């Protein structure tokens, strides 16, 4: 009898271990990718045209997003796709646009977004310059009826993540959007 229960225990335990590893692999990957991205970002800063963070990547970091008050520094990837979102925040649209929209998972990189308050400083290094913004608005949007509007000429930064923050299931239609405008005195 004992052996049988050993068996059961082993099977269930291994399933549990497998599940938890599978789950933890997501945030681990998110962290690990940031570390690899940091390297390719340094390469790019040093003048490399194209420096994929891992050999089979089809994207590379294009910006650094930082929130000094929350001690956040994250590398932003080019190309808004589900795959890229696993590794870091992604930039929607072109780097030359002044109107930036950055999205990330609410349960990996953008956990901090819920803590952003109006007035918080957010800065971004992109296209060879550092821009600083102040958070001005927060809102929740239903994506089934609304689309984001990008106006390339307007200086603005929006951070987009899923809402509600603590929902267990994924794939809901709501998004939390924090918009930051350039701080007075910054260009």
């Amino acid at each position, binding site marked *: 009898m*004992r052996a049988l229960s050993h068996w059961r225990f082993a099977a269930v335990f291994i399933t549990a271990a497998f599940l938890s590893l599978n789950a933890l*692999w997501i945030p681990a990957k998110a962290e690990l990718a940031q570390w690899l991205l940091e390297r390719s970002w340094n390469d790019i800063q040093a003048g490399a045209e194209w420096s994929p963070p891992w050999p089979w990547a089809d994207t590379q970091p294009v910006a650094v997003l930082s929130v000094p008050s929350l001690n956040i520094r994250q590398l932003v990837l080019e190309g808004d796709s589900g*795959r890229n979102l696993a590794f870091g925040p992604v930039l929607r649209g072109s780097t030359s646009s002044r109107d930036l929209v950055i999205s990330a998972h609410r349960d990996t990189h953008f956990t901090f977004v819920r803590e952003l308050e109006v007035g918080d400083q957010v800065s971004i290094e992109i296209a060879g310059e550092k821009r600083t913004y102040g958070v001005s608005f927060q809102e929740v949007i239903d994506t089934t009826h609304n689309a984001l509007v990008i106006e390339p000429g307007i200086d603005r930064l929006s951070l987009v993540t899923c809402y509600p923050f603590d929902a267990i299931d994924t794939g809901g239609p709501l998004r939390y959007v924090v918009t930051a405008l350039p701080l007075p005195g910054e260009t």
Partner: protein
Amino acid sequence: MRHAQGNTSSIRDQLEQEARHLYPNLYQRLARRRGVKQKRSLRWQDRTLLIVAAVLMMALLLRGEPAFAQDDIEYGIEWSGGTATAVNTQIGIEITGMVARAEVTQVFQNRGSDWAEATYRFPLPEGAAVDQLQIEVGNRVLVGEIQEKQTARRIYQKARNNGQTATLVEQQRPNQFETRLANVAPGEVVRITIGFLSTVNYRDGEFSFQFPMTFTPRAGGSNQRFELETSPRPMLTSWADTPSPASTHQLDLGISLQTGLVLSKIDSRYHDVDIHPTTDGYHIFVTEQLARTDRIFELTWVPELGTAPQTSLTTWEDGDSVYALLMLAPPLQDEVAPQPREVIFVIDTSGSMEGESIKQARSALLHGLAYLEQDDLFNVIQFNSGHEQLFRNPVMPMTAELEAAADYIEGLAANGGTNMGPALHAAMTLPASTDHLRQIVFITDGSVGNEHDLLLQIGEELGDSRLFTVSIGAAPNTWFMNKSSIIGRGSHTHIGKLDAVESAMADLWNHIQTPALMNIEVDWGMDSEFFPEVIPDLYAGEPLWLYAKLPSQPREVSINGLLVDSPWEQHAQPLHSKGNETLATLWARSKIESLEDSRLFGTDPQWIREQVTDLALDYGMLTAYTSLVAVDKTPARPARQNLRSDNIPSLLPAGSSANATGFSATAAGWKLQLILSFITLAIASGLFFFPTGLLGRKSASTRQPMAPSTPPCRAIPTA
């Protein structure tokens, strides 16, 4: 515990030995049922389990996140200007015989308070010849003209800067177009009508016309917003939220169908339609409220038995020359016997196939297997970043092989890049078998960036093989799939949804199992210019259309070919009829297509460009080098007011695993998985602390005395 067991083992040993002699079967059953108590066999199982667990975990850790070779062009409108804009689409299609003349009218309204410029990207059917553009602004009507691309751009730029309302339609890719519209006043409604010609498909006694629709912006119910504070970022709300001046619908689609044939069936594959008979045909309307217009529109119609088209020649004379259309009907299926084939299934398992697409592909493959005959050979190759062959060499479809293949197919998952080249190379360069015709059935969504390299590769490596492409998903790259099947001398099948798989694969199979008419030559007479120049194989149930420009009206056209190594001949007399002026445009289109294709085989691109540009200007067609431009003569926008910008992404194709447009799915969901793992862990600890369970313990104690205990290790006939 273990100690106690040790003590009793000698007595048990004897009992066991006896029991074993008396009831060998019982003993084995018991041993099996109980699980095994001995240390050594436990270890064996533990080891296996540990190895399995370790392998699983390694696989998990090493699970790559490879590159995504998908070009994500989004159809939709992009405004540089007003904050709230809307678009409404009306499509009118007139099908006469084999030609479809379509008019797409888009109604734009600038609902912002600034002057706007809009960019709108849209797909059109395969091989559409765009030749008309008309804009209505207020009560002015502007008619577009064909200009060389750069010239058209300059005209547009100038008008744009002068504040004149202007439109430019450019071709971006063979089946993708972009409209730009400058200087739309705040609140102004603009109607843009684009007209094009296209041909109807005919295969296996069924006509069909497809219209890609993923460009239509979505409609929806009421608008729910949870505002925390006023938004500085303009949100584009869907059209249905506010009444529009034109219609409350997003899209009106009407088709007038005049076939001249008695029809037994009319069917719309992906949309609900209403069909009204008219004096000379039918009127068909899409009745759906267009909750989702993210699918291709497809209309099919079947003529009554015996009225299927025969080989026919239609001509039209414009004074200088005669334009001719020859429809070549294939020999009837029962005239020829099937021949043994070697079927290589190549399936795309790249990341872009994720979701509904891979399900359709798997199902298509399984259906394909079912059609194999005894003397056929087959193999399966899957590819993503790399490729994998199921069998080293093609095998006969015996039960074991078919089962192995089915298991393999069931296990296919979409992940990784799209590296099509090596897989196609593997399929096309397998050593040729002398008595089997090799047919490659290539199942993919065709989302690749290096289309031209691949087409070139197919042309070079094809040899005696034939390539049949099966495109999967709601928005496949049909241009590429079609072209590769033409170069591959096979045919192209589209599967748009899961329940269409069976009929589509049945069609494909009917089609490829009978030998084709090969080495076709058409004698058009002197000084004729005809396209395509190299006539592809003619398959049962699928006629060919050939276009020619002739110096004078032909008396007869003769067609020769080879059907299973014996000569085959047909003659066609011209049917002179009115209203065939579209033949000129269609001929020009086929010539342009043929010129464009010659690029793949090394023709000087500059020469092609010049040729195509001249032809397009002569025949008034939109091509890669010519655009349609229309300018309002009077400036509309006062010089001191500026143009400004927004962006409305369109619907994602149905079946894609993304779930929001305009926003990414921004929740990884690992916490849910973690919670599940904790629950499992709790069960595991339950098992650990109450090993036999409450019930188990009770029954164990009652059973203990009478049960012959498990024998010691050496007595067990393990493995």
